[in-house]
């Protein structure tokens, strides 16, 4: 909590709070980056489920979409931290914020597990007409978590006291 109080009292946090333009601009970037980040994530999950672009090789898709995915994620994290820093104590006090952070961790864990298991042996099943059940499980877990993360993100906006 003392860390949150310290962040709250920094000049930067004050600027984010008091500036008319800082918050709308950062929030707009956060929301618009959903198109390259969330959009790519959802499409890759749907591919793992054999629903989207079924004829396209998963290794090629990863290779083509990864730069946008990682770049988009970096922008989401930076803008997210900026929004958080405007009022860290209020953010942290909401249940939705905690839920969102937990689900983000779980989504990251899901990517790690996939990369160290099926992702390692992509070449073995890349050309199969159907993805293995493990890949489908990873896709479903990711879809559920990201729907939850978007919902929790919206929840934060409603739970926070209006500025």
């Amino acid at each position, binding site marked *: 909590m003392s860390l949150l109080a310290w962040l709250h009292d920094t000049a930067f946090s004050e600027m984010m709070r008091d500036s008319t333009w800082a918050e*709308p601009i950062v929030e707009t970037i956060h929301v618009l980056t959903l198109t390259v980040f*969330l959009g790519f994530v959802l*499409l890759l999950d749907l591919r793992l489920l054999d629903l*989207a672009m079924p004829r396209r090789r998963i290794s090629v898709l990863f290779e083509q979409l990864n730069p946008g995915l990682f770049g988009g994620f970096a922008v989401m994290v930076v803008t997210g931290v900026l929004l958080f820093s405007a009022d860290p104590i209020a953010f942290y006090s909401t249940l939705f914020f905690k839920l969102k952070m937990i689900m983000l961790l779980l989504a990251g864990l899901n990517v790690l597990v996939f990369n160290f298991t099926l992702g390692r042996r992509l070449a073995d099943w890349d050309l199969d007409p159907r993805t293995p059940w493990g890949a489908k499980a990873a896709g479903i877990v990711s879809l559920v978590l990201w*729907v939850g993360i978007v919902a929790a993100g*919206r929840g934060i906006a409603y739970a926070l006291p209006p500025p």
Partner: protein
Amino acid sequence: MRWLAAELLAFCRWCNGSFFGHGIRDSVWLFPFVEIFHLLALGLLGGTVVILNLSLLGFRFRGEPVAAVARDVRPWMIGSIVVMLVSGFLLFSTEAVKMYGSPAFQLKMLFLLLAILFTFTVHRKVTMLEEGHIAPLWRKLAAVVCIALWAAVALGGRAIGYVNSSGAS
């Protein structure tokens, strides 16, 4: 034009008073619930638009026919547009009369119309044509216009939240 404005206003009044306009407005959780669908579809629509246009610009999926990429993403693009239109209409219906007078909303609708028209006429044609049938410059221009139009729609949507600063933006 005057009769059209009157008809539109009457339609907005009807939306405001309709069971869904009423229901969503009076419920605590229905508005954010519909918003979640709007945001998820935004991600998917944006993702497909970006992928298709990066391919048209030659930045991604090089050496693969753009028409194949277009065929792959089209069902998801159309599906997410449908979800956006339905969820967007429901959100609109909760304060339709207010939206009628909102410059941000009017601009968003104008760009939405242009974006849909362009995407499913000129842009569709350009993506389906084989390379060499059309100058690279026109292909790149079509990609840039498509991205710009959809970005304008998204920015208009953001502006609605800030221009009418009621509740969460």
